[in-house]
Protein backbone atom coordinates (compact mmCIF):
# COMPACT_ATOMS: atom_id res chain seq x y z
CA UNK A 1 0.00 0.00 0.00
CA UNK A 2 1.44 3.38 -0.95
CA UNK A 3 -0.02 6.85 -0.85
CA UNK A 4 -1.37 6.29 -4.38
CA UNK A 5 -4.80 5.55 -2.97
CA UNK A 6 -4.86 8.81 -1.06
CA UNK A 7 -7.25 11.26 -2.64
CA UNK A 8 -6.14 14.71 -3.65
CA UNK A 9 -8.29 16.16 -0.90
CA UNK A 10 -6.50 14.10 1.75
CA UNK A 11 -3.10 14.95 0.35
CA UNK A 12 -4.00 18.61 0.34
CA UNK A 13 -5.33 18.36 3.89
CA UNK A 14 -1.99 16.99 5.07
CA UNK A 15 -0.09 19.77 3.33
CA UNK A 16 -2.35 22.38 4.92
CA UNK A 17 -1.94 20.72 8.33
CA UNK A 18 1.82 20.82 7.90
CA UNK A 19 1.70 24.49 6.95
CA UNK A 20 -0.59 25.45 9.83
CA UNK A 21 1.43 23.45 12.34
CA UNK A 22 4.51 25.27 11.12
CA UNK A 23 2.80 28.65 11.49
CA UNK A 24 1.39 27.60 14.85
CA UNK A 25 4.87 26.67 16.04
CA UNK A 26 5.65 30.36 16.39
CA UNK A 27 3.04 30.50 19.17
CA UNK A 28 2.93 26.93 20.47
CA UNK A 29 6.72 26.54 20.49
CA UNK A 30 7.44 29.23 23.11
CA UNK A 31 4.42 28.09 25.17
CA UNK A 32 5.67 24.48 25.24
CA UNK A 33 9.20 25.62 26.05
CA UNK A 34 7.89 27.77 28.91
CA UNK A 35 5.95 24.81 30.30
CA UNK A 36 8.98 22.54 29.88
CA UNK A 37 11.46 24.88 31.55
CA UNK A 38 9.38 26.92 33.99
CA UNK A 39 6.40 24.83 35.02
CA UNK A 40 8.14 21.45 35.14
CA UNK A 41 11.79 22.61 35.35
CA UNK A 42 12.81 19.88 32.94
CA UNK A 43 16.31 19.74 31.49
CA UNK A 44 18.33 17.42 29.29
CA UNK A 45 21.70 15.78 29.63
CA UNK A 46 24.20 16.75 26.91
CA UNK A 47 21.62 18.90 25.13
CA UNK A 48 24.02 20.63 22.75
CA UNK A 49 25.63 17.37 21.69
CA UNK A 50 22.27 15.68 21.15
CA UNK A 51 20.97 18.56 19.04
CA UNK A 52 24.17 18.77 17.03
CA UNK A 53 24.01 15.05 16.39
CA UNK A 54 20.37 15.21 15.29
CA UNK A 55 21.12 18.14 12.97
CA UNK A 56 24.02 16.21 11.46
CA UNK A 57 21.98 13.03 11.06
CA UNK A 58 19.06 14.90 9.50
CA UNK A 59 21.46 16.64 7.12
CA UNK A 60 22.97 13.29 6.17
CA UNK A 61 19.51 11.69 5.77
CA UNK A 62 17.33 14.48 4.39
CA UNK A 63 14.59 12.17 3.07
CA UNK A 64 11.91 10.17 4.85
CA UNK A 65 12.85 9.28 8.39
CA UNK A 66 11.29 7.07 11.04
CA UNK A 67 12.23 8.19 14.53
CA UNK A 68 11.78 5.09 16.67
CA UNK A 69 11.80 5.53 20.43
CA UNK A 70 11.08 3.70 23.61
CA UNK A 71 7.86 4.84 25.27
CA UNK A 72 7.44 5.57 28.96
CA UNK A 73 5.24 8.65 29.39
CA UNK A 74 2.33 10.38 27.67
CA UNK A 75 4.53 13.31 26.69
CA UNK A 76 7.52 11.46 25.24
CA UNK A 77 6.87 12.91 21.77
CA UNK A 78 6.93 16.48 23.06
CA UNK A 79 9.99 16.00 25.24
CA UNK A 80 11.81 14.22 22.46
CA UNK A 81 11.06 17.05 20.02
CA UNK A 82 12.24 19.69 22.50
CA UNK A 83 15.46 17.82 23.24
CA UNK A 84 16.23 17.00 19.60
CA UNK A 85 15.94 20.51 18.22
CA UNK A 86 15.59 24.14 19.12
CA UNK A 87 12.60 26.17 18.01
CA UNK A 88 14.91 27.96 15.63
CA UNK A 89 16.02 24.65 14.11
CA UNK A 90 12.43 23.59 13.48
CA UNK A 91 11.52 26.96 11.99
CA UNK A 92 14.47 26.76 9.63
CA UNK A 93 14.08 23.06 8.85
CA UNK A 94 10.38 22.10 9.04
CA UNK A 95 11.13 18.53 7.97
CA UNK A 96 13.15 18.07 11.17
CA UNK A 97 9.96 18.34 13.24
CA UNK A 98 8.39 14.89 13.13
CA UNK A 99 4.81 13.89 12.62
CA UNK A 100 3.31 11.92 15.49
CA UNK A 101 0.96 8.95 15.56
CA UNK A 102 -1.26 9.22 18.63
CA UNK A 103 -3.91 6.65 19.44
CA UNK A 104 -7.17 8.33 18.43
CA UNK A 105 -9.05 6.91 21.41
CA UNK A 106 -6.70 8.65 23.86
CA UNK A 107 -6.37 12.06 22.25
CA UNK A 108 -9.29 12.75 19.93
CA UNK A 109 -12.10 12.86 22.48
CA UNK A 110 -12.42 16.66 22.66
CA UNK A 111 -12.05 19.51 20.21
CA UNK A 112 -9.28 21.14 22.24
CA UNK A 113 -7.20 17.95 22.08
CA UNK A 114 -8.07 17.53 18.42
CA UNK A 115 -6.78 21.03 17.72
CA UNK A 116 -3.67 20.38 19.78
CA UNK A 117 -2.98 17.19 17.86
CA UNK A 118 -3.70 18.88 14.54
CA UNK A 119 -1.25 21.67 15.23
CA UNK A 120 1.15 19.15 16.76
CA UNK A 121 1.43 17.49 13.36
CA UNK A 122 -0.39 14.31 14.31
CA UNK A 123 -1.90 11.52 12.24
CA UNK A 124 -4.31 9.59 14.48
CA UNK A 125 -4.15 5.81 14.47
CA UNK A 126 -6.64 3.33 15.89
CA UNK A 127 -5.86 -0.02 17.44
CA UNK A 128 -8.03 -2.70 15.88
CA UNK A 129 -9.28 -0.27 13.23
CA UNK A 130 -11.31 -1.49 10.28
CA UNK A 131 -9.32 -2.38 7.21
CA UNK A 132 -10.44 0.81 5.43
CA UNK A 133 -9.46 3.09 8.30
CA UNK A 134 -6.13 1.35 8.84
CA UNK A 135 -5.39 1.61 5.12
CA UNK A 136 -6.26 5.30 5.14
CA UNK A 137 -4.02 6.03 8.14
CA UNK A 138 -1.19 4.07 6.54
CA UNK A 139 -1.59 5.94 3.25
CA UNK A 140 -1.38 9.27 5.11
CA UNK A 141 1.83 8.14 6.82
CA UNK A 142 3.29 6.99 3.52
CA UNK A 143 2.45 10.34 1.96
CA UNK A 144 4.23 12.47 4.54
CA UNK A 145 7.22 10.13 4.50
CA UNK A 146 7.46 10.17 0.72
CA UNK A 147 7.47 13.97 0.87
CA UNK A 148 10.64 13.70 2.96
CA UNK A 149 9.20 14.31 6.42
CA UNK A 150 9.97 12.45 9.62
CA UNK A 151 7.52 10.38 11.65
CA UNK A 152 8.03 9.69 15.35
CA UNK A 153 6.83 6.21 16.19
CA UNK A 154 6.97 4.01 19.25
CA UNK A 155 7.89 0.56 17.92
CA UNK A 156 6.64 -1.22 21.03
CA UNK A 157 3.15 0.01 20.14
CA UNK A 158 2.45 0.83 23.77
CA UNK A 159 4.09 2.30 26.83
CA UNK A 160 6.47 0.03 28.76
CA UNK A 161 4.57 -0.69 31.97
CA UNK A 162 7.63 -2.18 33.69
CA UNK A 163 9.85 0.67 32.53
CA UNK A 164 11.95 -1.45 30.20
CA UNK A 165 11.79 -1.97 26.44
CA UNK A 166 9.54 -4.94 25.71
CA UNK A 167 11.33 -7.10 23.15
CA UNK A 168 8.76 -9.90 23.25
CA UNK A 169 5.32 -8.34 22.74
CA UNK A 170 5.76 -5.46 20.34
CA UNK A 171 4.00 -4.07 17.29
CA UNK A 172 5.17 -4.51 13.70
CA UNK A 173 4.10 -1.02 12.60
CA UNK A 174 7.66 0.16 11.97
CA UNK A 175 8.34 -2.80 9.69
CA UNK A 176 5.09 -2.24 7.83
CA UNK A 177 6.00 1.40 7.23
CA UNK A 178 9.46 0.35 6.04
CA UNK A 179 7.83 -2.11 3.66
CA UNK A 180 5.79 0.74 2.20
CA UNK A 181 8.60 3.31 2.13
CA UNK A 182 11.77 1.23 1.77
CA UNK A 183 13.99 4.29 1.40
CA UNK A 184 13.10 5.64 4.82
CA UNK A 185 15.94 6.05 7.29
CA UNK A 186 15.56 4.68 10.79
CA UNK A 187 16.71 6.74 13.74
CA UNK A 188 16.57 4.83 17.02
CA UNK A 189 16.21 6.86 20.19
CA UNK A 190 16.45 5.95 23.83
CA UNK A 191 14.84 8.56 26.10
CA UNK A 192 14.62 8.25 29.86
CA UNK A 193 14.40 10.46 32.90
CA UNK A 194 17.65 10.26 34.84
CA UNK A 195 16.27 11.24 38.24
CA UNK A 196 13.00 9.35 38.33
CA UNK A 197 12.75 7.47 35.02
CA UNK A 198 10.32 4.64 34.45
CA UNK A 199 6.67 4.45 33.50
CA UNK A 200 4.49 7.49 34.33
CA UNK A 201 1.81 9.61 32.72
CA UNK A 202 3.99 12.70 33.13
CA UNK A 203 7.61 12.88 34.25
CA UNK A 204 7.86 14.50 37.70
CA UNK A 205 8.93 18.15 37.89
CA UNK A 206 12.67 18.61 37.93
CA UNK A 207 13.32 15.59 35.73
CA UNK A 208 16.51 15.56 33.68
CA UNK A 209 16.33 13.59 30.45
CA UNK A 210 18.91 11.33 28.87
CA UNK A 211 18.56 10.92 25.12
CA UNK A 212 20.74 8.76 22.90
CA UNK A 213 20.28 8.45 19.16
CA UNK A 214 21.67 6.05 16.56
CA UNK A 215 20.88 5.41 12.91
CA UNK A 216 20.00 1.86 11.98
CA UNK A 217 19.72 0.15 8.60
CA UNK A 218 17.56 -2.91 9.29
CA UNK A 219 17.78 -5.67 6.69
CA UNK A 220 15.68 -8.67 5.78
CA UNK A 221 15.78 -11.15 2.91
CA UNK A 222 12.09 -11.90 3.46
CA UNK A 223 9.16 -9.90 2.17
CA UNK A 224 5.67 -8.92 3.26
CA UNK A 225 4.63 -9.53 6.84
CA UNK A 226 7.70 -11.64 7.60
CA UNK A 227 9.94 -8.77 6.52
CA UNK A 228 7.89 -6.34 8.63
CA UNK A 229 8.43 -8.57 11.63
CA UNK A 230 12.17 -8.94 10.96
CA UNK A 231 12.70 -5.20 10.58
CA UNK A 232 10.60 -4.34 13.62
CA UNK A 233 12.51 -6.87 15.72
CA UNK A 234 15.83 -5.31 14.68
CA UNK A 235 14.62 -1.83 15.65
CA UNK A 236 13.41 -3.08 19.03
CA UNK A 237 16.68 -4.95 19.59
CA UNK A 238 18.68 -1.79 18.92
CA UNK A 239 16.60 0.31 21.32
CA UNK A 240 16.88 -2.42 23.92
CA UNK A 241 20.65 -2.39 23.48
CA UNK A 242 20.67 1.39 23.90
CA UNK A 243 18.74 0.88 27.11
CA UNK A 244 21.29 -1.68 28.30
CA UNK A 245 24.09 0.76 27.45
CA UNK A 246 22.37 3.46 29.50
CA UNK A 247 22.09 1.28 32.59
CA UNK A 248 25.60 -0.09 32.16
CA UNK A 249 27.02 3.44 31.96
CA UNK A 250 24.96 4.48 34.97
CA UNK A 251 26.08 1.48 37.01
CA UNK A 252 29.71 1.93 35.99
CA UNK A 253 29.61 5.59 36.96
CA UNK A 254 30.64 6.72 33.49
CA UNK A 255 27.36 8.58 33.05
CA UNK A 256 27.25 11.56 35.35
CA UNK A 257 23.89 11.31 37.11
CA UNK A 258 22.16 14.51 38.25
CA UNK A 259 21.71 15.32 41.92
CA UNK A 260 18.32 15.99 43.50
CA UNK A 261 16.19 18.58 41.67
Amino acid sequence: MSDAGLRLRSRLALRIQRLLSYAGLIVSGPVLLAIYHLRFRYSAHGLREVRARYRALRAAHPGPLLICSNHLTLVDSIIQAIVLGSLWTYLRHPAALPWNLPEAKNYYHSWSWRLTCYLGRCIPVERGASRERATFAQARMNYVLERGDAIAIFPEGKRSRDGRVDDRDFSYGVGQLLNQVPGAGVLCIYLRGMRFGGFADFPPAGERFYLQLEMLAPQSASHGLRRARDLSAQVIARIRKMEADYFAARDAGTLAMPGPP
Partner: protein
Amino acid sequence: MTEAQITEKVIALVTPYVKNRAALANVTRDTTFLADLGINSARLVDIVLAFEDEFGIEVSDDAADSIATVGDAVDLIGKLVP
Protein backbone atom coordinates in the same frame (compact mmCIF):
# COMPACT_ATOMS: atom_id res chain seq x y z
CA MET B 1 -7.19 -31.40 3.76
CA THR B 2 -10.76 -31.08 5.02
CA GLU B 3 -12.27 -27.92 6.47
CA ALA B 4 -12.51 -29.60 9.87
CA GLN B 5 -8.79 -30.46 9.82
CA ILE B 6 -7.88 -26.93 8.85
CA THR B 7 -10.13 -25.50 11.57
CA GLU B 8 -8.56 -27.75 14.18
CA LYS B 9 -5.06 -26.66 13.20
CA VAL B 10 -6.08 -23.00 13.05
CA ILE B 11 -7.45 -23.13 16.58
CA ALA B 12 -4.31 -24.88 17.82
CA LEU B 13 -2.09 -22.23 16.24
CA VAL B 14 -4.18 -19.38 17.60
CA THR B 15 -4.52 -20.70 21.14
CA PRO B 16 -1.18 -19.41 22.55
CA TYR B 17 -2.16 -15.85 21.60
CA VAL B 18 -5.72 -15.89 22.96
CA LYS B 19 -6.41 -13.61 25.92
CA ASN B 20 -10.10 -14.43 26.28
CA ARG B 21 -9.82 -18.11 27.15
CA ALA B 22 -13.57 -18.43 27.77
CA ALA B 23 -14.31 -17.50 24.14
CA LEU B 24 -11.91 -20.19 23.01
CA ALA B 25 -14.22 -22.87 24.36
CA ASN B 26 -17.05 -21.76 22.06
CA VAL B 27 -15.24 -20.96 18.84
CA THR B 28 -17.35 -20.81 15.67
CA ARG B 29 -16.62 -19.68 12.13
CA ASP B 30 -17.88 -16.21 13.13
CA THR B 31 -15.57 -15.83 16.12
CA THR B 32 -13.38 -12.78 15.56
CA PHE B 33 -9.69 -12.87 16.44
CA LEU B 34 -9.50 -9.33 17.78
CA ALA B 35 -12.81 -8.64 19.50
CA ASP B 36 -13.87 -12.12 20.61
CA LEU B 37 -10.58 -13.88 21.30
CA GLY B 38 -8.78 -10.74 22.51
CA ILE B 39 -5.76 -11.23 20.27
CA ASN B 40 -3.91 -7.99 19.58
CA SER B 41 -3.31 -6.93 16.02
CA ALA B 42 0.48 -7.40 16.14
CA ARG B 43 0.05 -10.99 17.25
CA LEU B 44 -2.38 -11.52 14.40
CA VAL B 45 0.63 -11.04 12.12
CA ASP B 46 2.45 -13.78 14.03
CA ILE B 47 -0.58 -16.01 13.59
CA VAL B 48 -0.70 -15.43 9.82
CA LEU B 49 3.01 -16.27 9.61
CA ALA B 50 2.34 -19.40 11.66
CA PHE B 51 -0.36 -20.34 9.11
CA GLU B 52 2.23 -19.93 6.34
CA ASP B 53 4.71 -22.19 8.11
CA GLU B 54 2.18 -24.81 9.16
CA PHE B 55 0.31 -25.12 5.86
CA GLY B 56 3.20 -24.32 3.49
CA ILE B 57 1.36 -21.38 1.95
CA GLU B 58 2.08 -17.72 1.26
CA VAL B 59 -0.44 -15.15 2.40
CA SER B 60 -0.33 -11.76 0.68
CA ASP B 61 -0.60 -8.58 2.75
CA ASP B 62 -4.05 -7.87 1.32
CA ALA B 63 -5.25 -11.39 2.08
CA ALA B 64 -3.85 -11.13 5.60
CA ASP B 65 -5.74 -7.87 6.09
CA SER B 66 -8.95 -9.63 5.14
CA ILE B 67 -8.71 -12.17 7.99
CA ALA B 68 -11.08 -11.12 10.75
CA THR B 69 -12.76 -14.35 11.82
CA VAL B 70 -11.85 -17.99 12.23
CA GLY B 71 -13.99 -18.70 9.15
CA ASP B 72 -12.03 -16.14 7.11
CA ALA B 73 -8.78 -17.89 8.04
CA VAL B 74 -10.10 -21.37 7.31
CA ASP B 75 -11.51 -20.31 3.93
CA LEU B 76 -8.31 -18.55 2.93
CA ILE B 77 -6.12 -21.47 3.94
CA GLY B 78 -8.46 -23.88 2.15
CA LYS B 79 -7.94 -21.91 -1.06
CA LEU B 80 -4.16 -21.70 -0.69
CA VAL B 81 -3.15 -25.16 0.49
CA PRO B 82 -1.57 -27.16 -2.33
